[in-house]
């Protein structure tokens, strides 16, 4: 290598190109190579293979339901973080925070609506996604375990929604969670213990609100992110989306 070829003047001239290349990890190539690099050169996009089977693109096959569930989850994470800025998990303050969102915070009511409606929609979409997977036989070998991960995701989605239901601390929330947690106590022998563990007491109160809050904003989202990651990784490892056998 010749030292003379490195001059600061040239470096400044090439600055935009060099910064761009170091950021995208990409060098010029054929159109096809560049398209491929777009996917595998990006941490977030490389969960996808560079090429996918045409069947995976048919909207009438997946109906996009898994993807819709994922997008709703993303919307929930973003709107959830914003709602957290205004929320205190205290029986004294929680309800007042809700009223503030409605009347004092700019667009607070829209923010709350987004979080609420996305949560309901996600439960419905995950269930419909499961129906799609069933009716297309997509749970069969080699995708058995991804179905199992899916069932765990369904449960996590339900618990996320249920723990969030208590947080506004209004009559709807309080009595729905009272009814819901009573169901757990019907388990023989350990039912009451489980209910106690869930609520941090014998009744829905401050301890229950705090427990539901921690589960809702920390524990369950973390579990969901990990499971979704494994779910997507498995789709690739299992050979992409299921499709009819071709002769």
């Amino acid at each position, binding site marked *: 290598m010749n030292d003379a070829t490195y001059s600061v003047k040239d470096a400044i001239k090439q600055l935009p190109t060099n910064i761009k290349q170091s950021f995208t990890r990409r060098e010029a190539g054929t159109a096809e190579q560049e398209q*491929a690099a777009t996917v595998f050169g990006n941490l977030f996009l490389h969960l996808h293979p560079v*090429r996918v089977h045409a*069947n995976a693109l048919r909207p009438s096959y997946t109906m996009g339901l898994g993807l819709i569930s994922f*997008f709703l989850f993303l919307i929930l994470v973003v709107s959830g973080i914003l709602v957290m800025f205004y929320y205190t998990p205290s029986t004294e303050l929680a309800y007042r925070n809700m009223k503030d969102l409605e009347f004092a915070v700019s667009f607070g009511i829209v923010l709350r609506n987004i979080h*609420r409606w996305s949560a309901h929609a996600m439960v419905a979409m995950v269930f419909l996604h499961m129906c799609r997977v069933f009716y*297309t036989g997509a749970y069969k070998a080699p995708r058995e375990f991804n179905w199992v991960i899916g069932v765990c995701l369904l*449960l996590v989605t339900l618990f996320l929604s249920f723990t969030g239901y208590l947080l506004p601390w209004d009559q709807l929330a309080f009595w729905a969670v009272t009814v819901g947690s009573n169901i757990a106590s019907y388990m023989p022998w350990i039912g009451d213990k489980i209910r106690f563990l869930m609520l941090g007491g014998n009744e829905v109160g401050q301890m229950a609100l705090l427990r539901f809050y921690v589960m809702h904003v920390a524990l369950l989202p973390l579990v969901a992110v990990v499971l979704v990651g494994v779910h997507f990784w498995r789709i690739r490892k299992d050979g992409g989306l299921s499709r009819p056998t071709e002769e």
Partner: protein
Amino acid sequence: MQLARKEEIFAKDGNKTYSLMAIVEGESLHVERGPENTVQTWPHLMVRELLLFLVVLLAILGVSLLFNAPLEEAANPLHSTNPAKAPWYFVGIQELVSYSAFLGGILVPAAIVVGLLLLPYLDRSPKGIGVWFSADRKLANTLFTVFVVAMVVLIFIGQFLRGPNWIIRWPW
């Protein structure tokens, strides 16, 4: 390294612009067939994904501008609502609980979860993968439809037909 071992079988051809990158076990996109049935992920798949994201976002925004999330009076542990209903996705279970606490609250939910978890290990036939409502899967499709319809009916009854004291009434 598997790659190094297989190299001589798939000898490199100087006239080709592609080469074998990796060998993986099992059925995968490229096994024993060229890239004929595949398309570039970027742009074909990802543009569609982005579009779908926009549609989902717009739909949620639209609904959120039109309808407000419910907020009742502040929680009052001394004064129960009548009826007190679980969130809609658990109302089907609550409906079953009103018939029998143990059956509806424990047995049926546990059976559903265990049944779902075991499903792919019980149904081992490879028939009908990748086809909606495959005619080879009449029994499985029928059973699952019965399950889905039962869930929907129970949720409907619990959510819309149950009034104060959990008595059946018309929703209007």
